[in-house]
Protein backbone atom coordinates (compact mmCIF):
# COMPACT_ATOMS: atom_id res chain seq x y z
CA UNK A 1 0.00 0.00 0.00
CA UNK A 2 2.75 2.38 1.04
CA UNK A 3 4.72 1.66 -2.09
CA UNK A 4 1.63 2.49 -4.17
CA UNK A 5 1.40 5.90 -2.49
CA UNK A 6 5.08 6.54 -3.07
CA UNK A 7 4.71 5.58 -6.71
CA UNK A 8 1.73 7.89 -7.08
CA UNK A 9 3.60 10.80 -5.47
CA UNK A 10 6.67 10.19 -7.61
CA UNK A 11 4.46 10.11 -10.67
CA UNK A 12 2.89 13.45 -9.73
CA UNK A 13 6.30 15.02 -9.11
CA UNK A 14 7.56 13.69 -12.43
CA UNK A 15 4.56 15.01 -14.34
CA UNK A 16 4.88 18.43 -12.63
CA UNK A 17 8.54 18.67 -13.59
CA UNK A 18 7.69 17.55 -17.11
CA UNK A 19 5.14 20.36 -17.34
CA UNK A 20 7.64 23.02 -16.23
CA UNK A 21 9.14 24.68 -19.25
CA UNK A 22 12.35 26.48 -20.06
CA UNK A 23 11.93 29.58 -22.20
CA UNK A 24 14.90 31.31 -23.80
CA UNK A 25 15.10 35.11 -23.90
CA UNK A 26 17.94 36.66 -25.86
CA UNK A 27 19.84 39.89 -25.27
CA UNK A 28 20.39 41.23 -28.75
CA UNK A 29 21.34 44.74 -29.92
CA UNK A 30 20.94 45.98 -26.33
CA UNK A 31 17.35 44.73 -26.12
CA UNK A 32 15.65 41.71 -24.64
CA UNK A 33 14.17 39.73 -27.51
CA UNK A 34 10.76 39.92 -25.83
CA UNK A 35 9.14 42.91 -24.13
CA UNK A 36 6.78 40.71 -22.14
CA UNK A 37 6.63 37.02 -21.37
CA UNK A 38 3.91 34.92 -19.73
CA UNK A 39 5.13 31.87 -17.85
CA UNK A 40 3.89 29.58 -15.10
CA UNK A 41 5.24 29.08 -11.60
CA UNK A 42 8.09 26.59 -11.84
CA UNK A 43 9.11 27.60 -15.34
CA UNK A 44 12.69 28.59 -16.05
CA UNK A 45 13.85 31.49 -18.20
CA UNK A 46 17.24 31.16 -19.85
CA UNK A 47 18.79 34.56 -20.62
CA UNK A 48 21.33 34.37 -23.45
CA UNK A 49 23.72 37.20 -24.34
CA UNK A 50 23.96 37.53 -28.12
CA UNK A 51 25.85 40.86 -28.10
CA UNK A 52 29.58 41.31 -28.45
CA UNK A 53 29.86 42.86 -24.98
CA UNK A 54 28.85 41.96 -21.44
CA UNK A 55 25.29 42.17 -20.20
CA UNK A 56 23.69 41.77 -16.80
CA UNK A 57 20.22 40.55 -15.83
CA UNK A 58 18.56 41.48 -12.57
CA UNK A 59 15.21 42.05 -10.93
CA UNK A 60 14.35 43.93 -7.78
CA UNK A 61 10.66 42.96 -8.02
CA UNK A 62 9.07 41.51 -4.89
CA UNK A 63 7.88 38.43 -6.78
CA UNK A 64 11.40 37.38 -7.74
CA UNK A 65 14.62 39.16 -6.81
CA UNK A 66 17.81 38.07 -8.52
CA UNK A 67 21.10 39.33 -9.92
CA UNK A 68 22.75 37.12 -12.52
CA UNK A 69 26.02 39.10 -12.56
CA UNK A 70 27.62 39.84 -15.91
CA UNK A 71 28.46 37.48 -18.72
CA UNK A 72 29.75 37.70 -22.28
CA UNK A 73 28.43 36.79 -25.68
CA UNK A 74 27.29 33.20 -26.09
CA UNK A 75 26.76 32.57 -22.38
CA UNK A 76 23.42 32.05 -20.63
CA UNK A 77 22.13 32.22 -17.09
CA UNK A 78 18.90 30.64 -15.82
CA UNK A 79 16.25 31.75 -13.35
CA UNK A 80 13.44 29.50 -12.13
CA UNK A 81 10.41 31.54 -11.12
CA UNK A 82 8.76 30.21 -7.97
CA UNK A 83 6.27 32.93 -7.03
CA UNK A 84 3.34 34.28 -9.03
CA UNK A 85 3.41 37.97 -9.92
CA UNK A 86 4.83 40.58 -12.25
CA UNK A 87 8.61 40.65 -12.49
CA UNK A 88 10.45 43.61 -14.03
CA UNK A 89 13.70 42.40 -15.54
CA UNK A 90 16.51 44.79 -16.50
CA UNK A 91 20.18 44.94 -17.47
CA UNK A 92 22.03 47.08 -14.92
CA UNK A 93 24.71 48.03 -17.44
CA UNK A 94 22.23 49.13 -20.12
CA UNK A 95 19.13 50.51 -18.37
CA UNK A 96 17.21 50.87 -21.63
CA UNK A 97 16.99 47.07 -21.64
CA UNK A 98 13.80 46.16 -19.82
CA UNK A 99 11.18 43.44 -20.00
CA UNK A 100 8.28 42.18 -17.91
CA UNK A 101 7.70 38.54 -16.98
CA UNK A 102 4.20 37.64 -15.80
CA UNK A 103 4.43 34.55 -13.62
CA UNK A 104 1.05 32.84 -13.36
CA UNK A 105 -0.20 30.17 -10.94
Amino acid at each position, binding site marked *: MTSKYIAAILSLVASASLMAETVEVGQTDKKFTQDTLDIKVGDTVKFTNND*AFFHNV*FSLSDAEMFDLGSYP*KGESRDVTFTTPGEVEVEC*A*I*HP*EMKMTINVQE
Partner: protein
Amino acid sequence: MSIARIAKSTITTSVLASAFMFGLTPAQADEHYVFEAGHTSLQEWLMPEVPYPDNNQPNAERVELGKMLFFDPRLSGDGNMSCATCHSPLFGWSDGLPTAKGFKSKVLGRASPTVTNSAYNSLQMWDGRKKSLEDQALGPMLSSAEMNVDLSMAINFLKGNSTYVEAFEKAYPGQGIKDETLAMAIASFERTVISNNSPFDRWVKGDKTAMSKQQVNGFKLFVDPEKGNCAVCHSAPNFSDSGFHNIGLASWGQENPDMGRYAIKPINLMKGAFKTPTLRDITLTAPYFHDGSAMTLSDVMDHYEAGGSVKTNLSPNMKKLTLTQAEKADLVEFMKALTSPQKPFVLPILPENAF
Protein backbone atom coordinates in the same frame (compact mmCIF):
# COMPACT_ATOMS: atom_id res chain seq x y z
CA MET B 1 22.89 46.53 -36.66
CA SER B 2 21.10 43.26 -37.24
CA ILE B 3 21.46 41.29 -40.43
CA ALA B 4 17.83 42.13 -41.22
CA ARG B 5 18.63 45.83 -40.96
CA ILE B 6 21.70 45.41 -43.12
CA ALA B 7 19.57 43.66 -45.72
CA LYS B 8 17.22 46.62 -45.81
CA SER B 9 20.09 49.03 -46.22
CA THR B 10 22.07 49.56 -49.35
CA ILE B 11 25.14 47.64 -48.26
CA THR B 12 25.88 45.37 -51.16
CA THR B 13 25.76 41.65 -50.71
CA SER B 14 29.41 41.57 -51.70
CA VAL B 15 30.32 43.39 -48.49
CA LEU B 16 28.46 40.79 -46.47
CA ALA B 17 29.88 38.01 -48.56
CA SER B 18 33.41 39.25 -48.03
CA ALA B 19 32.74 39.46 -44.29
CA PHE B 20 31.79 35.80 -44.22
CA MET B 21 34.77 34.89 -46.43
CA PHE B 22 37.05 36.30 -43.75
CA GLY B 23 35.42 34.01 -41.23
CA LEU B 24 33.29 36.59 -39.45
CA THR B 25 30.12 35.37 -37.83
CA PRO B 26 26.93 37.35 -38.51
CA ALA B 27 27.32 39.16 -35.18
CA GLN B 28 30.91 40.11 -35.99
CA ALA B 29 29.83 41.26 -39.43
CA ASP B 30 27.49 43.69 -37.64
CA GLU B 31 30.57 45.51 -36.41
CA HIS B 32 32.17 45.54 -39.81
CA TYR B 33 32.56 49.05 -41.10
CA VAL B 34 33.90 50.14 -44.44
CA PHE B 35 36.15 53.07 -43.63
CA GLU B 36 35.31 55.20 -46.63
CA ALA B 37 33.75 58.66 -46.35
CA GLY B 38 30.00 58.42 -46.78
CA HIS B 39 29.82 54.62 -46.71
CA THR B 40 26.43 53.18 -45.82
CA SER B 41 27.88 51.08 -43.03
CA LEU B 42 28.81 54.29 -41.15
CA GLN B 43 25.45 56.03 -41.22
CA GLU B 44 24.37 54.78 -37.80
CA TRP B 45 26.82 57.36 -36.38
CA LEU B 46 24.76 60.35 -37.57
CA MET B 47 22.60 61.96 -34.91
CA PRO B 48 18.84 61.52 -35.40
CA GLU B 49 16.26 64.25 -34.89
CA VAL B 50 16.25 65.62 -31.35
CA PRO B 51 13.66 63.70 -29.31
CA TYR B 52 11.22 65.46 -26.98
CA PRO B 53 8.32 64.39 -24.75
CA ASP B 54 4.76 64.54 -26.08
CA ASN B 55 3.74 67.21 -23.59
CA ASN B 56 6.64 69.55 -24.30
CA GLN B 57 7.03 70.03 -28.02
CA PRO B 58 9.67 72.71 -28.50
CA ASN B 59 8.84 76.05 -30.11
CA ALA B 60 10.56 79.44 -30.26
CA GLU B 61 8.70 80.84 -27.25
CA ARG B 62 9.56 77.88 -25.04
CA VAL B 63 13.22 77.92 -26.08
CA GLU B 64 13.59 81.69 -25.54
CA LEU B 65 11.94 81.48 -22.13
CA GLY B 66 14.11 78.53 -21.20
CA LYS B 67 17.21 80.40 -22.29
CA MET B 68 16.40 83.32 -19.97
CA LEU B 69 15.72 80.97 -17.07
CA PHE B 70 18.90 78.99 -17.75
CA PHE B 71 21.03 82.13 -17.45
CA ASP B 72 19.10 83.87 -14.65
CA PRO B 73 21.07 83.88 -11.32
CA ARG B 74 18.01 85.17 -9.50
CA LEU B 75 16.83 81.55 -9.42
CA SER B 76 19.49 80.69 -6.83
CA GLY B 77 19.51 81.16 -3.07
CA ASP B 78 22.27 83.76 -3.08
CA GLY B 79 21.17 85.27 -6.40
CA ASN B 80 24.56 84.59 -7.95
CA MET B 81 24.34 81.17 -9.60
CA SER B 82 22.44 80.12 -12.68
CA CYS B 83 22.33 76.81 -14.54
CA ALA B 84 25.01 78.37 -16.75
CA THR B 85 27.39 78.79 -13.83
CA CYS B 86 28.23 75.10 -14.07
CA HIS B 87 26.98 74.53 -17.63
CA SER B 88 28.55 77.44 -19.44
CA PRO B 89 28.79 77.92 -23.20
CA LEU B 90 32.28 79.27 -22.51
CA PHE B 91 33.40 75.78 -21.47
CA GLY B 92 31.48 73.46 -23.78
CA TRP B 93 28.40 73.72 -21.52
CA SER B 94 30.41 72.47 -18.55
CA ASP B 95 32.63 74.57 -16.26
CA GLY B 96 36.25 73.70 -16.98
CA LEU B 97 36.70 72.52 -13.39
CA PRO B 98 37.70 69.02 -12.24
CA THR B 99 34.55 68.86 -10.13
CA ALA B 100 31.81 71.45 -9.77
CA LYS B 101 31.72 74.26 -7.25
CA GLY B 102 28.32 74.75 -5.69
CA PHE B 103 26.71 76.96 -3.06
CA LYS B 104 29.33 79.34 -1.60
CA SER B 105 31.94 77.69 -3.83
CA LYS B 106 31.75 74.37 -2.01
CA VAL B 107 33.70 71.81 -4.05
CA LEU B 108 31.31 69.04 -5.07
CA GLY B 109 32.12 65.41 -5.72
CA ARG B 110 31.46 65.11 -9.41
CA ALA B 111 32.28 67.01 -12.59
CA SER B 112 29.59 69.15 -14.22
CA PRO B 113 28.37 67.07 -17.17
CA THR B 114 27.98 68.92 -20.44
CA VAL B 115 24.51 69.91 -21.60
CA THR B 116 25.59 69.18 -25.18
CA ASN B 117 23.43 66.40 -26.65
CA SER B 118 21.95 65.62 -23.23
CA ALA B 119 18.64 65.68 -25.12
CA TYR B 120 19.56 62.20 -26.34
CA ASN B 121 20.28 60.73 -22.89
CA SER B 122 17.76 58.15 -21.74
CA LEU B 123 18.72 59.00 -18.15
CA GLN B 124 20.24 62.20 -16.77
CA MET B 125 22.99 62.80 -14.17
CA TRP B 126 26.18 60.74 -13.69
CA ASP B 127 24.20 58.17 -11.70
CA GLY B 128 21.12 58.28 -13.92
CA ARG B 129 18.81 59.28 -11.08
CA LYS B 130 16.78 61.64 -13.27
CA LYS B 131 14.65 60.27 -16.08
CA SER B 132 14.40 63.32 -18.34
CA LEU B 133 15.66 66.88 -18.80
CA GLU B 134 12.38 68.08 -17.29
CA ASP B 135 12.94 65.81 -14.31
CA GLN B 136 16.52 67.04 -13.94
CA ALA B 137 16.05 70.78 -14.46
CA LEU B 138 14.99 71.71 -10.93
CA GLY B 139 17.35 69.33 -9.13
CA PRO B 140 20.34 71.69 -8.87
CA MET B 141 18.08 74.61 -7.88
CA LEU B 142 16.66 72.64 -4.97
CA SER B 143 19.96 71.11 -3.87
CA SER B 144 21.35 72.82 -0.77
CA ALA B 145 24.85 72.08 -2.09
CA GLU B 146 24.19 73.75 -5.43
CA MET B 147 21.85 76.65 -6.25
CA ASN B 148 20.12 76.26 -2.89
CA VAL B 149 16.92 78.14 -3.64
CA ASP B 150 13.52 77.91 -2.03
CA LEU B 151 11.52 77.03 -5.11
CA SER B 152 8.37 78.75 -3.90
CA MET B 153 10.40 81.98 -3.63
CA ALA B 154 11.77 81.48 -7.14
CA ILE B 155 8.25 80.94 -8.47
CA ASN B 156 7.08 84.06 -6.64
CA PHE B 157 9.93 86.04 -8.19
CA LEU B 158 8.89 84.88 -11.66
CA LYS B 159 5.21 85.60 -10.97
CA GLY B 160 6.14 89.11 -9.85
CA ASN B 161 8.01 89.91 -13.02
CA SER B 162 5.76 91.07 -15.87
CA THR B 163 8.23 90.06 -18.59
CA TYR B 164 8.41 86.52 -17.25
CA VAL B 165 4.62 86.40 -16.79
CA GLU B 166 4.18 87.32 -20.44
CA ALA B 167 6.89 84.90 -21.61
CA PHE B 168 5.37 81.99 -19.67
CA GLU B 169 1.91 82.76 -21.05
CA LYS B 170 3.25 82.76 -24.61
CA ALA B 171 5.23 79.56 -24.08
CA TYR B 172 2.69 77.61 -22.04
CA PRO B 173 -0.69 79.33 -22.54
CA GLY B 174 -3.03 78.86 -19.61
CA GLN B 175 -0.62 76.59 -17.72
CA GLY B 176 0.74 79.26 -15.40
CA ILE B 177 4.11 79.73 -13.72
CA LYS B 178 4.79 76.64 -11.65
CA ASP B 179 7.45 73.99 -11.05
CA GLU B 180 6.42 72.02 -14.12
CA THR B 181 6.44 74.87 -16.64
CA LEU B 182 9.72 76.19 -15.22
CA ALA B 183 11.33 72.77 -15.77
CA MET B 184 9.74 72.31 -19.19
CA ALA B 185 11.05 75.66 -20.45
CA ILE B 186 14.61 74.97 -19.27
CA ALA B 187 14.49 71.51 -20.86
CA SER B 188 13.27 73.04 -24.13
CA PHE B 189 16.29 75.33 -24.24
CA GLU B 190 18.68 72.49 -23.35
CA ARG B 191 17.36 70.51 -26.32
CA THR B 192 18.81 73.20 -28.61
CA VAL B 193 22.37 72.56 -27.37
CA ILE B 194 23.30 70.04 -30.02
CA SER B 195 26.54 68.89 -31.60
CA ASN B 196 25.97 67.09 -34.89
CA ASN B 197 28.21 68.77 -37.46
CA SER B 198 31.71 67.73 -36.47
CA PRO B 199 34.43 66.81 -38.99
CA PHE B 200 33.53 63.20 -38.17
CA ASP B 201 29.86 63.83 -39.09
CA ARG B 202 30.90 65.47 -42.35
CA TRP B 203 33.17 62.51 -43.13
CA VAL B 204 30.33 60.07 -42.41
CA LYS B 205 28.17 62.11 -44.79
CA GLY B 206 30.76 61.77 -47.55
CA ASP B 207 33.26 64.63 -47.26
CA LYS B 208 36.58 62.83 -47.82
CA THR B 209 38.55 65.88 -46.70
CA ALA B 210 36.74 66.32 -43.39
CA MET B 211 39.01 63.98 -41.45
CA SER B 212 42.75 63.40 -41.84
CA LYS B 213 44.19 59.98 -42.55
CA GLN B 214 45.35 59.88 -38.95
CA GLN B 215 41.84 60.60 -37.70
CA VAL B 216 40.31 57.90 -39.93
CA ASN B 217 42.86 55.48 -38.52
CA GLY B 218 41.90 56.66 -35.04
CA PHE B 219 38.27 55.83 -35.79
CA LYS B 220 39.28 52.33 -36.93
CA LEU B 221 41.10 51.83 -33.63
CA PHE B 222 38.16 53.33 -31.74
CA VAL B 223 35.67 50.73 -32.98
CA ASP B 224 38.09 47.78 -32.98
CA PRO B 225 37.41 45.62 -29.89
CA GLU B 226 40.98 44.30 -30.08
CA LYS B 227 42.55 47.79 -30.11
CA GLY B 228 40.85 50.85 -28.60
CA ASN B 229 37.69 48.95 -27.60
CA CYS B 230 36.11 52.40 -27.10
CA ALA B 231 32.85 51.89 -28.99
CA VAL B 232 31.87 49.04 -26.65
CA CYS B 233 30.56 51.85 -24.41
CA HIS B 234 30.97 55.03 -26.48
CA SER B 235 28.63 53.67 -29.11
CA ALA B 236 26.72 55.17 -32.06
CA PRO B 237 25.42 57.70 -32.61
CA ASN B 238 26.06 59.89 -29.54
CA PHE B 239 29.26 58.09 -28.49
CA SER B 240 27.42 56.76 -25.44
CA ASP B 241 25.58 53.52 -24.70
CA SER B 242 23.52 55.38 -22.06
CA GLY B 243 24.93 52.71 -19.78
CA PHE B 244 26.81 52.54 -16.47
CA HIS B 245 30.34 51.26 -15.97
CA ASN B 246 33.00 51.25 -13.27
CA ILE B 247 36.10 52.28 -15.22
CA GLY B 248 38.50 51.80 -12.31
CA LEU B 249 39.52 55.39 -11.57
CA ALA B 250 42.00 55.99 -8.75
CA SER B 251 39.28 57.74 -6.72
CA TRP B 252 37.38 54.44 -6.57
CA GLY B 253 40.21 53.06 -4.45
CA GLN B 254 39.91 55.76 -1.80
CA GLU B 255 38.16 55.35 1.53
CA ASN B 256 34.37 55.74 1.27
CA PRO B 257 34.39 56.16 -2.51
CA ASP B 258 31.51 57.55 -4.55
CA MET B 259 29.28 54.51 -5.16
CA GLY B 260 27.73 56.07 -8.28
CA ARG B 261 24.87 54.14 -9.86
CA TYR B 262 24.73 51.65 -6.96
CA ALA B 263 22.95 54.26 -4.85
CA ILE B 264 20.12 54.18 -7.38
CA LYS B 265 20.24 50.52 -8.45
CA PRO B 266 21.67 48.36 -5.64
CA ILE B 267 23.19 45.74 -7.92
CA ASN B 268 26.82 44.80 -7.15
CA LEU B 269 27.95 45.51 -10.68
CA MET B 270 26.87 49.13 -10.22
CA LYS B 271 29.22 49.88 -7.32
CA GLY B 272 31.39 52.72 -8.55
CA ALA B 273 29.68 52.75 -11.94
CA PHE B 274 28.83 56.00 -13.73
CA LYS B 275 27.03 56.87 -16.95
CA THR B 276 29.01 56.79 -20.17
CA PRO B 277 29.36 60.45 -21.22
CA THR B 278 29.08 61.54 -24.82
CA LEU B 279 32.36 62.30 -26.57
CA ARG B 280 30.82 64.90 -28.86
CA ASP B 281 32.49 68.31 -28.39
CA ILE B 282 34.95 66.50 -26.11
CA THR B 283 37.78 68.96 -26.75
CA LEU B 284 35.72 71.69 -25.04
CA THR B 285 35.01 69.90 -21.78
CA ALA B 286 38.35 69.04 -20.10
CA PRO B 287 39.08 67.87 -17.44
CA TYR B 288 37.64 64.42 -18.06
CA PHE B 289 35.91 61.59 -16.16
CA HIS B 290 33.22 62.01 -13.51
CA ASP B 291 35.88 62.94 -10.94
CA GLY B 292 37.77 65.28 -13.28
CA SER B 293 40.97 63.31 -12.76
CA ALA B 294 42.21 63.35 -16.38
CA MET B 295 43.47 66.71 -17.58
CA THR B 296 43.93 65.76 -21.24
CA LEU B 297 42.69 63.24 -23.76
CA SER B 298 46.15 61.66 -23.64
CA ASP B 299 45.68 61.13 -19.91
CA VAL B 300 42.36 59.45 -20.72
CA MET B 301 44.09 57.13 -23.19
CA ASP B 302 46.76 56.23 -20.62
CA HIS B 303 44.04 55.25 -18.16
CA TYR B 304 42.29 52.97 -20.63
CA GLU B 305 45.54 51.51 -21.95
CA ALA B 306 46.28 50.30 -18.42
CA GLY B 307 42.80 48.79 -18.21
CA GLY B 308 41.94 51.07 -15.32
CA SER B 309 43.78 51.94 -12.14
CA VAL B 310 41.68 50.20 -9.45
CA LYS B 311 40.44 46.82 -10.64
CA THR B 312 37.90 46.08 -7.90
CA ASN B 313 34.45 45.68 -9.43
CA LEU B 314 35.84 46.87 -12.74
CA SER B 315 33.38 46.90 -15.65
CA PRO B 316 33.62 43.56 -17.47
CA ASN B 317 33.75 45.56 -20.70
CA MET B 318 37.09 47.09 -19.64
CA LYS B 319 40.36 45.38 -20.55
CA LYS B 320 44.03 46.28 -20.81
CA LEU B 321 44.77 47.67 -24.26
CA THR B 322 47.70 46.97 -26.52
CA LEU B 323 48.37 50.22 -28.32
CA THR B 324 51.49 51.84 -29.73
CA GLN B 325 52.25 55.50 -29.01
CA ALA B 326 51.27 56.27 -32.61
CA GLU B 327 47.93 54.47 -32.19
CA LYS B 328 47.18 56.38 -29.01
CA ALA B 329 47.97 59.60 -30.83
CA ASP B 330 45.63 58.54 -33.65
CA LEU B 331 42.83 57.93 -31.15
CA VAL B 332 43.33 61.36 -29.59
CA GLU B 333 43.33 62.98 -33.03
CA PHE B 334 40.10 61.14 -33.86
CA MET B 335 38.43 62.42 -30.71
CA LYS B 336 39.41 65.95 -31.75
CA ALA B 337 37.32 65.37 -34.88
CA LEU B 338 34.18 65.04 -32.73
CA THR B 339 33.85 68.75 -31.97
CA SER B 340 31.38 70.71 -34.07
CA PRO B 341 32.37 74.20 -35.31
CA GLN B 342 31.77 76.72 -32.55
CA LYS B 343 29.86 79.94 -33.11
CA PRO B 344 29.62 82.90 -30.74
CA PHE B 345 26.73 82.31 -28.38
CA VAL B 346 24.22 85.15 -27.98
CA LEU B 347 23.28 85.63 -24.35
CA PRO B 348 19.67 86.48 -23.52
CA ILE B 349 18.62 89.85 -22.18
CA LEU B 350 17.18 89.06 -18.76
CA PRO B 351 13.94 90.65 -17.58
CA GLU B 352 14.53 93.72 -15.44
CA ASN B 353 14.34 93.54 -11.70
CA ALA B 354 10.91 94.60 -10.52
CA PHE B 355 11.16 96.34 -7.15
